């Protein structure tokens, strides 16, 4: 992959605003406009399920734009109205699965998506729902099959391309993933600012993963130009800054990120950044608050358990728990899903708890998918070195 596609992309992008703010279009985001349209539809056609579905969908989009999960609860309320009017209406059921995904109810989402897929095997986006749920559960073969159907049924469709790109990345093909993300970007309407910003954030992420920080930065600047203070883009810029060794700048972006999306997992990343920047006192406070908040929701579907595992395993800042708590949570997570990041978290927790053989088995399961994720590879190397060191110190009797 050369840098041409992203160079072309940059021509399409507006000048990057230096200040925080909201997108253009009379300061209303695409999801806000969609919410307003749907509410107007409900006023006009109160007895129809469609505007309620549209409202639920718009609220789910708003949740992505803002990172506020409360929008999902509002979406569910809208769906309840829709189902009162038409209990089995297909579009409503699709949004329902969508909301389940947003709330990280992946197993439920997968089951629901499969029912819809049987009802209408030609609905391309239902394959997307199947793929998203399957990928989050680590069922990559199932996800791949569903995404291939998307690509076959409607060649070049954007939801299919972005999902194929995501799977290519999981399978270790970063160049191929970038190819498809750029193809997707070129097809999205300029009015869909958040969609475009999302894709550009992915493009930036892929460039960074390939070690191309310059193009990563360009893409992320583009994303923030399209959708100022976009929380995904802020987090990714922070990662770029970390890779550049600019801990202070990284911290600044982590602060902005947490401000835009104040959730425990983001607080953890902020605490790590504070620590790296030498702000030890503030870091300790942040870690403490993170642990408290993360533990409050650790039994719910939408949680910060991966960060909690990393916290117990890597940071040892807890007054009450140690590595063994990290392993306990990791085992629980792995009983629910087998995606590469959960397997990695489990392997790392096993490693920290002195179980190298099992750690090796789990990290190898993640690597078998093909991932080239730097963090996973680093863990794999450490686990391998641990095993080697242990076998070197062990002298079997002849």
């Amino acid at each position, binding site marked *: 992959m050369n840098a041409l596609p992203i160079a072309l992309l940059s021509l399409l992008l507006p000048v990057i605003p230096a200040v925080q703010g909201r997108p253009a279009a009379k300061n209303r985001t695409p999801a806000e406009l969609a919410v307003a349209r749907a509410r107007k539809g409900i006023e006009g056609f109160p007895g129809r399920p469609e505007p309620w579905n549209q409202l639920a969908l718009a609220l789910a989009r708003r949740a*992505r734009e803002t990172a506020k*999960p409360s929008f999902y609860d509002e979406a569910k309320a809208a769906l309840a109205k829709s189902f009162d009017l038409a209990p089995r209406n297909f*579009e409503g059921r699709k949004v329902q699965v969508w909301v389940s995904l947003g709330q990280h109810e992946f197993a439920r989402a997968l089951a629901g998506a499969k029912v819809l897929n049987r009802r209408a095997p030609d609905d391309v986006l239902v394959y*997307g729902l199947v793929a998203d749920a399957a990928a989050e559960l680590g069922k990559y073969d199932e996800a791949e099959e569903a995404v291939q159907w998307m*690509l076959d049924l409607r060649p070049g*469709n954007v939801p299919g391309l972005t*999902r*194929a790109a995501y799977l290519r990345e999981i399978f270790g093909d970063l160049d191929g993933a970038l190819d498809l993300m750029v193809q997707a970007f070129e097809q999205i309407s300029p009015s869909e600012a958040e969609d475009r910003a999302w894709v550009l*954030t992915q493009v930036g992420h892929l460039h960074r993963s390939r070690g191309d920080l310059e193009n990563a930065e360009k893409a992320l600047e583009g994303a923030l130009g399209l959708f100022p203070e976009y929380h995904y883009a802020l987090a990714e810029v922070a990662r770029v800054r970390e890779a550049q060794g600019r801990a202070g700048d990284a911290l600044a972006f982590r602060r902005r990120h947490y401000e835009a999306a104040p959730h425990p997992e983001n607080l953890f990343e902020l605490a790590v950044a504070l620590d790296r920047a030498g702000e030890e006192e503030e870091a300790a406070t942040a870690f403490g608050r993170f642990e408290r908040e993360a533990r409050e929701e650790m039994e719910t579907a939408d949680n910060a358990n991966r960060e909690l595992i990393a916290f117990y395993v890597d940071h040892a800042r807890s007054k009450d728990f140690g590595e063994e708590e990290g392993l306990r949570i990791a085992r629980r997570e792995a009983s629910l899903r087998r995606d590469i990041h959960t397997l990695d978290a489990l392997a790392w927790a096993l490693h920290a708890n002195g179980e190298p053989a099992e750690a090796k088995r789990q990290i190898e399961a993640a690597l078998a998918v093909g991932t080239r994720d730097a963090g996973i590879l680093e863990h794999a190397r450490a686990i391998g070195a641990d095993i080697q060191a242990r076998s070197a110190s062990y002298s079997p009797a002849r």
Partner: protein
Amino acid sequence: MRPLPILLSRGAVLALLVASTALPSNHREAPITALDHKADITDVYAFVSYAPGQAPNTPPSKATLILAVDPLLEPGNGPTFFPFDPAILYEIKVDHDRDARPDVVFQFRFTTEYQLPGVFTALAGVGPSGAFEPGTSNLVVPPRITSFDNPGLNLRQTYTVHVDRSGGPDLDLENSDGSPFFAVPANAGPRTIDYEALYAAGTYALPGGISVFAGTTDDAFWIDLGAAFDTANFRTLASGVPGVLTASEDASTTNLASDTVSGYAVNTIAIEVPIEMLTRTGVIEPATSPDATIGVWASTSRQRVTVRRSPLPEKNKGPWRQVQRMGNPLINELVIGIGSKDRFSMDQPENDEQFADFFLNPPIVGIVEALYGGALAVPAAPRTDLLPLVTYAEPIAAPGTEPGPIADLLRLNTGVPATPLAMASRLGLIGGDPAGYPNGRRIYDDVTDITLRVAVGGVLAAPFPGFNPDINGRLGDGVNVDDQPYHDSFPYVGSCPSGRNRRHIDPGEPGGGPVN
């Protein structure tokens, strides 16, 4: 520093919403196929070959397999007319061991060349010597096209035929002199082309008793398409009941309603092979042998973006992805639900169990029953009487044949002798002609009327409560024959109508039936 997953943590959801939850679909056949005209399969035919003047019960020797694509081609529609698409893999497939998987596959690929790139049309010609700039010897218009070497055949296509056989060596079919196979072009009109000469020259007899043909021909199918898709609004003829023929109308060899496909062309690929090449045992089996019956279907495929990249140079493109497939006629159009048509088109017959409800309880039956308001009784679902269409079963396959999985294959008992043309019935098997549809499909089988009577009328399930042979057994659209004569030997299909002089026969015209 893990990558951004599709679902990031808090409040994050799918990769992309992109405007709406539903992609629009329209309907001609399968929505995706309607968008890909070149890959749209119109018909598949498979039958034991017959010859002019053939005696009854002549032992079977060869079978003809035909794939027609690219529907409703207006013959005068230049300047490019209707080349096959070099990006499509055209395949005719045969299952000979009753597992609905391909055992013999005939693959056709096309290549396009331009002989006169500066000339504005694909086909140009006049007279035996062409036309010159007045007062000069500068040839402006090439001579009338009488052979594939004529430069007036500006857009010229050649094709290859590869045979993939499980358990046997693959074959690349070739002319004995090594010359290429040319595709027969459209019939632009009498000034431009001697179409019949090219039709004959483009019918290739190869070593080993194999013949091949590809080109633009008459569309061998006939139907009152307008009535069928106006919610089964068939015309009222002498019986007084819409869509029900009297005995004499049923026997008519002229049309009583409009053949919507009249005057249109289609692109045809045909191959004739010794039956030994198709059966599991490699010999011609008697009709009483389970191994005599094969399953035939055709598919069109394109290379698509694949999740896993293929090797260079097409790094984003992978293996062939099926665009459409077809076994029995009218299955996708009239049987498969609109929300499943694309999946059906793109999936493999071996996975057809997922469509079993459509096959054995076709929605069209309930629709027609409702439209008749009690005048037409239909058999109760599940319609096990339709199993012969989707499994290996009597009366097509021999008694005791293992049925295999439910799959949309055209079942052909290769041991049944071809019926001499003069004795053949357009109603095939249900017309007392054992060599006709649904035992294979000949080009002159009236699959519309047969399907109406079998699927809606339930004639294979008769007798059942309310069954009336004069209604259930006389369903028909009133179009009994094609508008163009067929050829009586391979490749059998009629000649492409002349672009200049073609005629579409409309309702209200002579031969077009009433407007009612």
